Every structure is written in C-alpha cells, then in structure tokens.
C-alpha cells in the first residue's frame, strides 16, 4: 500500500513541476572557425573513400576542402547570387569549366572526378547534386540579408567549416526553427513570424 501512496504523491508533484518548469531547447550552434590559411592541406582521398566520409555521396566527388580550403576560392565565386539574392546560386557547369578546361587535376583521384565534369559539359547534361541544407518550403531565408548583416564570411555560421570538409555534411539542422531563433534572440534582431513565414 505504501508504494501506491508514494506513486500517488509522485504524480501530483510531477504535474505541478511540469507546468512550472520549462527548459530552453539547447540550440548550440557552431561558430565560424576561421580556417588559418597555411594549415589547410586537403587530404588525398579517392571517390571510394567518400562512402566513409560524413554527408551524402555526390554524383561528382567535389572537394570543398580543396577548392575553398586549399585554394581559398571565395564562396561567392561559385555561389554567385548569395550576396544579392535569397538563393545562393548553384554554380553552373560553365563556371566549373571556366577553370577545368585548363585544370585537369594534379593526381589520378582528381582527374577521375574532373573528367566527369567535362563529360557532363560535353553532353550538356547538368549535374544533379544531392541537396544537403533544405529549408521547409514555408520558411523563406534571404541569404543576402544575412551576408549584408554578418559579412562575407558568415557562411560558416550555419553551414559549418565547409573549407575543411572533403564531402559536405549537415553541421546544423538549419530546418529547426529553434536554430534560427536562438541566433536572432542572441543578436536582438527581428523575431517577427512573417519575416520568414509567408
């Protein structure tokens, strides 16, 4: 009988506690770590390794760590509309070929992948990349506003240190509203619903 009593009391207490307490969802977000220039040397990987790497396998084993890390190509070079439009813009094959007409790749692992790009270009067949950061269709995220406010290196705030990723993976669940809000509260900026939802 006593056990039952304890249980009974417990329930009452818990009900009370629940209504009173309310914890904040932890929305720890990974801050932009400035890749210190020299240290970045992309590891040698073959497409075979891409299976082990985090993040989805892409039709072409494109190496952000080489392009943006090792060779320090600005994000905006390929993601051309990120500073003036809501959409960052996915580089066209033409953009790729701009360099890869000339650059064939330093070693075999690169050559294989670059060949894929050239073939696609020859066959006029766009590459179908697997999307990693997807936002629900009812949320509108204007990239340009965020770059305007946080500067050109703001990308890592949400996308993580892509410059060190052989294969891009999702660092933050950008589709979690809490992820956006925690930042907006912290920075004391607009929290109005219709800023994103319309």
């Amino acid at each position, binding site marked *: *009988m006593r056990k*039952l009593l304890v249980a009974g009391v417990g329930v009452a207490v818990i009900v009370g506690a629940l*209504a009173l307490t*309310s*914890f*904040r*969802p932890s*929305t720890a977000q990974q801050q932009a770590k400035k890749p210190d220039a020299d240290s970045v040397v992309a590891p040698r990987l073959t497409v075979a390794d891409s299976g082990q790497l985090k993040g989805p396998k892409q039709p072409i084993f494109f190496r952000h760590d080489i392009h943006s890390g090792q060779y320090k190509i600005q994000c905006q070079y390929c993601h051309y509309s990120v500073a003036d439009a809501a959409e960052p813009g996915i580089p066209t094959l033409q953009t790729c070929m701009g360099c890869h007409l000339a650059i064939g790749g330093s070693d075999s692992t690169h050559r294989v992948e670059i060949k894929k790009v050239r073939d696609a270009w020859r066959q006029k067949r766009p590459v179908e990349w697997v999307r990693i950061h997807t936002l629900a269709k009812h949320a509108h995220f204007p990239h340009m506003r965020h770059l305007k406010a946080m500067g050109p290196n703001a990308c890592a705030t949400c996308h993580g240190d892509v410059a060190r990723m052989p294969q891009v993976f999702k660092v933050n669940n950008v589709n*979690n*509203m*809490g992820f956006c*809000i925690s930042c907006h*509260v912290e920075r004391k900026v607009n929290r109005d619903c219709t800023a994103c939802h319309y």
Partner: protein
Amino acid sequence: MTATTHDPSRPAMTHAEVTRDIVNTLRTPSRGYYMALFAAIGMFLIGAATFVALLKEGLGLAGYNPPVFWSVYITTFVFWVGIGHAGTLISAILFLFRSPWRTAVYRSTEAMTVFAVMTAGLFPIIHIGRQWIFYWLLPYPNQRWLWPNFKSPLIWDVFAISTYLTVSTTFLVVGLVPDIAAVRDKMTGWRKKLYGALSIGWTGADSQWRHYSRGYLYLAALATPLVLSVHSVVSWDFAMSVIPGWHGTIFAPYFVAGAIYSGIGMVLTLVIPLRRVLKIEHMITEYHFDNLAKLTLLTGTILFYAYGMEYFVAWYSGNTFEQETFWRRAFGPQWWSGWTMIICNAFVSQLLWFRKIRRNLTSLFVISIFINIGMWFERYVIITSSLSNDFLPFAWGQMNPTWADWGILVGSFGWFGMYFLLFARTFPVVAIQEIKEMIPMPRRKGGAH
C-alpha cells in the same frame, strides 16, 4: 426509531441487504445488457471509420459551408460537456447541501460525467483542420520557442476541460474505494484479487474514515465552483467573439443552466432503464425521480427565461445585426432547428409542474428524450444559425450536414455508451457506503440517537 421508516430517502433495508443487492448487480448480466453493449460498440466503430475518413480526405467531407466554420462537431462537443454537469452537480453540490436524495443516484451520474467529458474531450481534436498536431494547443517546451496564446478562449477550454476531467475522475475514484472494498470482501477468486488491488488496502478503519470523510468534503467543495466554471468557459468560446447571436453577456449562466438541464435529462434517460436492468428499483425510487424532475423543471424554466431574454435584448438593443440574427433564428432558412430547441426545452420542461408526470417513469423517460434532442439543437442553433448570417450579407451561407457529421455524432454516443455500460457492469452504480450511512445501525437498547 426502527430501520423501517417513512423517510423516502432511506431504503427500507438492512446494511447486509444493501451490500447483497448492489454486489449482485456485478454478477453475470442479462442478454439485454450485451445487446446494448454491442450496439454501443457498433456505433463507436461508425464514428471511428468516419474519423479515419476525415484524417485521410479532410474536413471538407463534413457539411461546412462558410461562413459556417463550426457546426455539428462543436455542437456535439458542447452537448457532451453539458451532459457532464448534472453529475458533478448531484454528487458535489447536493453533497454540500446535504440533500438526502442524491445518495442513490449520484454514483451513476458521476460516472456519466466522467464519460461524457471523455467524449467531449475528443471533439476539439476531431474538429480541427490538422488533427495530427492538436498537441500544439498544450504549453509544452519545444525547440521553436513557441507557447500557446492564453488570451484565446480555446486555450481556456483546453484547461477547463482537462481540469474538469481530472477532478471528476478523481472524485469518482475516491468515492469508489470503500465500495470496492465492500465488493472485495464479497467476491472470491480472481475477482477478489482484482478488487483487492483496486481497493488499495481499504479496511474501513477509523483512521481511514477520518481523513477520507474530510478529504471527500473538500473535493466536493473544489468541484462545486469548477462545475460552474467549466460551462462558463465553454460559453465564452462564443461570448468572447463579436458574432451577433454569440456576443452575449448572459451566456455563462445561460449555458450552465442549459448544461445541468441537459445533464439531468441524460441521467433520466440512463437511470430509468438501468435500475430495471440491475434490479435496484427499490433503491432508486419514484422519490428520487421526482426530485430529479423538479431540478429539471427549475433549470428548464431558467432556460425559458434565457431564451426570452436573448430575444428581448436583441430587440431592445436596437442592434440591427442582432435583430436580423434572431429574426432568422425563428423564421430564417433554419427555422425548424430554432423551434425544435424552444419546444423541446422551454415548453416540454413545463409539463413537469404536474406531480403525476414527475412520478410516472414512462412520461419522464419520453420527456428526457425530448430534452436530449432539444439541448443538442440548442447548441446547433446557437452555433450554426448565428454563423450563417453575420455582418456582411454578401458572405452569408447555409450549411447542410453530411454523413461525416452524423457519423461522428453517432460515434460519440457509441463511445459514451460503451464506457458507461462497462462501468455499470464492473463497479457499484449505487454508493454502498453512503446508503449505509443513511440507514442507522440496529441498536440493542433501541431508541433514537
């Protein structure tokens, strides 16, 4: 004074007989009972199927016709919440008033309350557009950092209904414990074990009765304001709006009276057959029904007044919107529903002025059916006809219910009946210990006390 007495509130029985007769109600039931149970389950399945269809296709299946955005579902919701009120009134308020006649009936009415509110509780979920996220109405911590809007009457509703359900359930269970113990001591085998567990070690020792009686008193004291508040809150779902026909200050008392009226109607509908089925006619007697009927008459008359007052205010306010609404309530496209409500509630209840009718179970039963119908229509009229024609004539529209509306309505009765029947079969529907409390124990020396 001896055990046989002229006080009609005290059945002329000994404690032993009381226990025996009530425990007998838990023995193997009649065929009639099973038929009733299966009927209820069948009806419930109809409702369930309809709900699945709603989930799959959308609320469009029901007869909604903007501007009528609420209709049968909310109507039925309010109907069931209302039913609940009679139970708590009888078990709690009359307990405080120490009115003797409640004893025999309060257990069954209280059970009715719990199951009615359980039924009502389903409707807010059924009627919303995205049923699968109904829980967004609850204030639970979430990663979106969002809370519900406590200024919304609908949130008040959520709290009122869940509180009401919890409290009346507690009240019922607490009341049951000593009786379960009594049953336990009469049972054998697994039944004894079952009731033994449920009686959480009740022995009827003075050390238990002492706190029990006190606690029960306070529970009643808490339930009393609650029962009055719940239907007030429900009425505010409407009264807080700007819609002519809803935007009324008398809504709270009006709804509470209506709720009790409908509740007692349902009590009559349930108890009249129940006492026969369970062979407890000698415990629930004409005397009790007479009192129930008087209560019905009182609340029915209050409703009569409220109806009149609504029309008076509409006229007296000079508010063209109100006037149009009430004119159409009586003579508009849905006049029939308006008149059903007035006849079934305002007029039929007046028959109870006659003692003959009050004490004749057949007539009472018929009247109770009228009350149930009338009170369902009252909510239908208030909700549907008020919405049909509000401010902008261009946007007016009439709704006609479809199978999806009726399916859910039928289902709700099935769901309710199912639980009630199972309860009547499993637990004493008459409060053993309270009856005994009223029957003085034999005294060797005799004489009054």
